[in-house]
C-alpha cells in the first residue's frame, strides 16, 4: 500500500477525459486552496468541463485529483460528488423549480453536516448576507437573473462546502446586477475564507476578483500565475480583446476640497474624479495601457491630473507599430503604457530610465 500523502492545502492532480470530439488533458497542476482562483480561457477551451470534473460530475473522468490531501479521483475510481463538500453555482443557477426559495435553501441546509438542528437560523443568516431575505417565499420562476444567482450562492453556502465552484455566475446578467453580484462574491470569499474556483471568459472579472489566474486553452492548463504576474506580461491572454491593462491595488480616501478622491497605496497616490455613488470599498483600479503616455520630463500646463514618476523596466513590441512599456511605480506596482514605436525611438527610451507616466483615465473596479 502506498504511504498516505500528508494534507497539502492544494487542489492537485492531472485530469483527463474525452467527450465526443473534445479532449481534456490538464497536465499536472497544483492550485493553492486559498483566495479566488479564476479559470480563464476562450469558450470551448474546457474550463467548464474541468470544473465539472473537479466536482465529480462527469463519470468519464480519469487521472488523479487530490483536495487538501484527500483522494477525489484515482484512475477510474472517483469519490462521489455528494461526498466532496463542494458548493457549486451554475451559469443558469439551476434552482429547483418545484420548490420556492426557502425550499431550495432548506434542501441544502438539511443535508449539510450538522443538519436539521439550526437550519432555519442558518438560512436566515445566509439569506441576509446574500440579500435574499425578502425573497424566501417567492417562486423560482418569479425571480430575476441576479436574484436567482444570489439564491444559488446562498444555497451553495448553506451546504457548508470546503470549496466553492462558480461557473460563469454573472455572464447572463445585465451590467448592474453583474456589478452587485461580483461585489457579493468578493465579500463572501473574503468573509468565509473559502477557496473559490471561478470561471470566466471576461478579463474584467479576472482583474476584479482573481488572486491567481489559471489560463486554459485547448483542454490544457497552460499556466497558473498570481494576478499581478499575469498582468505584467504584455502578451497575456487577458489582453487579447482590449489590449494591455494594469490593475493597481490601493485604498480609496474621502474626496478633497476640489471634489477629487485619492487612491493611495504606499507612496503612490492618484487623484480621481468619481461619480457620487462610487463604492468606497473598492480596492482595485483599472488602467488601460493605451490611456497612459510617457514623457521624459515632468510636463507643465497639462489638464491630466495624474503624472507619476516611474522607472522603465522593459519595452515590448506590441501590435503593429506600437510598443508596450512596462513601468515600475514608486510603490513597486507595475503600470503598462502603450505608445508608438516611433515615439519610443524619438524619445530614446531605454529600460532603466526614469520617466513620467501620464494617466489619462482610470476606472474604479466596484
Amino acid at each position, binding site marked *: 500500500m502506498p504511504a498516505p500523502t500528508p494534507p497539502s492545502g492544494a487542489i492537485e492532480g492531472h485530469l483527463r477525459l474525452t467527450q465526443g470530439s473534445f479532449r481534456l488533458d490538464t497536465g499536472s497542476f497544483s492550485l493553492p486552496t486559498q483566495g479566488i482562483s479564476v479559470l480563464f480561457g476562450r469558450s470551448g477551451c474546457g474550463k467548464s468541463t474541468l470544473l465539472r470534473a473537479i466536482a465529480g460530475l462527469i463519470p468519464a473522468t480519469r487521472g488523479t485529483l487530490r483536495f487538501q490531501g484527500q483522494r477525489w479521483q484515482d484512475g477510474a475510481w472517483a469519490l462521489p460528488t*455528494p461526498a466532496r463538500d463542494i458548493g457549486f453555482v451554475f451559469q443558469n443557477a*439551476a434552482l*429547483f423549480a418545484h420548490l420556492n426559495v426557502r425550499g431550495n435553501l432548506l434542501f441544502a441546509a438539511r443535508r449539510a453536516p450538522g443538519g436539521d438542528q439550526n437550519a432555519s437560523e442558518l438560512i436566515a443568516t445566509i439569506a441576509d448576507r446574500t440579500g435574499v431575505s425578502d425573497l424566501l417565499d417567492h417562486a423560482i420562476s418569479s425571480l430575476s437573473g441576479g436574484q436567482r444567482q444570489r439564491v444559488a450562492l446562498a444555497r451553495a453556502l448553506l451546504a457548508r462546502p470546503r470549496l466553492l465552484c462558480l461557473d460563469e455566475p454573472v455572464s447572463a446578467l445585465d451590467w448592474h446586477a453583474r456589478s452587485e453580484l461580483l461585489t457579493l462574491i468578493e465579500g463572501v470569499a473574503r468573509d468565509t475564507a473559502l477557496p473559490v474556483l471561478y470561471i470566466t471568459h471576461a478579463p474584467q472579472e479576472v482583474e476584479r476578483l482573481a488572486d491567481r489566474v489559471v489560463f486554459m486553452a485547448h483542454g490544457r492548463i497552460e499556466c497558473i500565475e498570481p494576478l499581478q504576474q499575469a498582468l505584467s506580461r504584455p502578451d497575456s491572454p487577458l489582453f487579447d480583446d482590449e489590449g494591455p491593462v494594469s490593475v493597481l491595488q490601493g485604498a480609496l480616501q474621502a474626496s478633497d476640497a476640489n471634489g477629487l478622491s485619492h487612491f493611495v497605496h504606499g507612496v503612490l497616490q492618484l487623484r480621481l474624479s468619481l461619480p457620487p455613488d462610487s463604492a468606497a470599498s473598492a480596492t482595485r483600479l483599472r488602467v488601460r495601457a493605451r490611456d497612459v503616455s510617457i514623457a521624459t520630463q515632468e510636463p507643465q500646463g497639462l489638464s491630466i491630473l495624474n503624472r507619476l514618476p516611474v522607472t522603465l523596466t522593459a519595452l515590448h513590441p506590441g501590435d503593429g507599430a506600437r510598443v508596450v512599456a512596462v513601468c515600475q511605480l514608486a510603490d513597486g506596482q507595475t503600470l503598462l503604457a502603450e505608445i508608438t514605436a516611433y515615439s519610443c525611438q524619438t524619445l530614446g527610451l531605454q529600460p532603466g530610465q526614469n520617466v513620467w507616466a501620464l494617466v489619462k483615465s482610470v476606472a474604479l473596479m466596484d
Partner: protein
Amino acid sequence: MTLLSAGEWQAIGLTAQLAGLTTLILLLLAAPLAWWLARSASRWRNAVAALVALPLVLPPTVIGFYLLILLGPRGAVGGTLQALGLPHLAFSFWGILVGSIIYSLPFAVQPLREAFAALDQQQLDAAATLRAGALDRFFHLVLPSSRGAILTAVVITFAHTVGEFGVVAMLGGSIAGETRVVSMAIYDYTQALEYGAAHRLSAILLGFSFFTLLTFYAINQRVLNPLHPR
C-alpha cells in the same frame, strides 16, 4: 343499490379493484423502466422501448391469446405454477391483472419517460453537489419535478384499464366476481338482449370516463402551472 343489480355492482367493484391494482403495480414498475429508457445509453434501449410500446399497436386479442397460452395450465408460467401446487392463471382475477399490466404498460411508461428525459441535468448535478445521493435525488427532485407526468400516468392507466375488453375476453372469460368486469358484463347483457342493463352500465362507464378526463385536465393545468409551485 336499488338502481343496479347485485351482479352489476359486483362488476363495477371488480373493475375498480382491477384498475386500482394495475395502476399501483404499474407505477412501481414503470418508474424505474421509464428512467432507464430515458437516461441509459444502452444499445438494448430501442429494443426494450419497442417491446414496451407493442400493446399500443397490437390487437388486444393477440396479447390475450399469447397470455392465455403462457399462463394456462400447459403454458410455461401456468404449468410451473401448477407444478408448485398453485393454480394456473388463465380465467382468474390474477390472470387478467397480469394481462392489464402488460396491456397498459405503455400508458404508464410514456409520460414518465418524457418527463425524465426533459429533466434539467444541471438541477440533478446541483442536487449532487448539495450532498443528495442517487435515491435522494430521485425521490426529492426527480419525482416532484415530474408530478404532472405521474398524474397523467395514473389517470390514463386507470382509465385505460377500466376500458379494457379484448385481453379480458381472451384470457379471463366472464366469471362473475372473478373476471366479469364492466366491459365484459356489458357484452354479456347485449348478447342476452338485456338492453336495459347494458344501457345502465354503458352510461356509467361513459360518465366515469368523461368526468375522470375532465377532472384530470382541470388539475393538470394547476399542477403544471410553473407560477404556483408548492
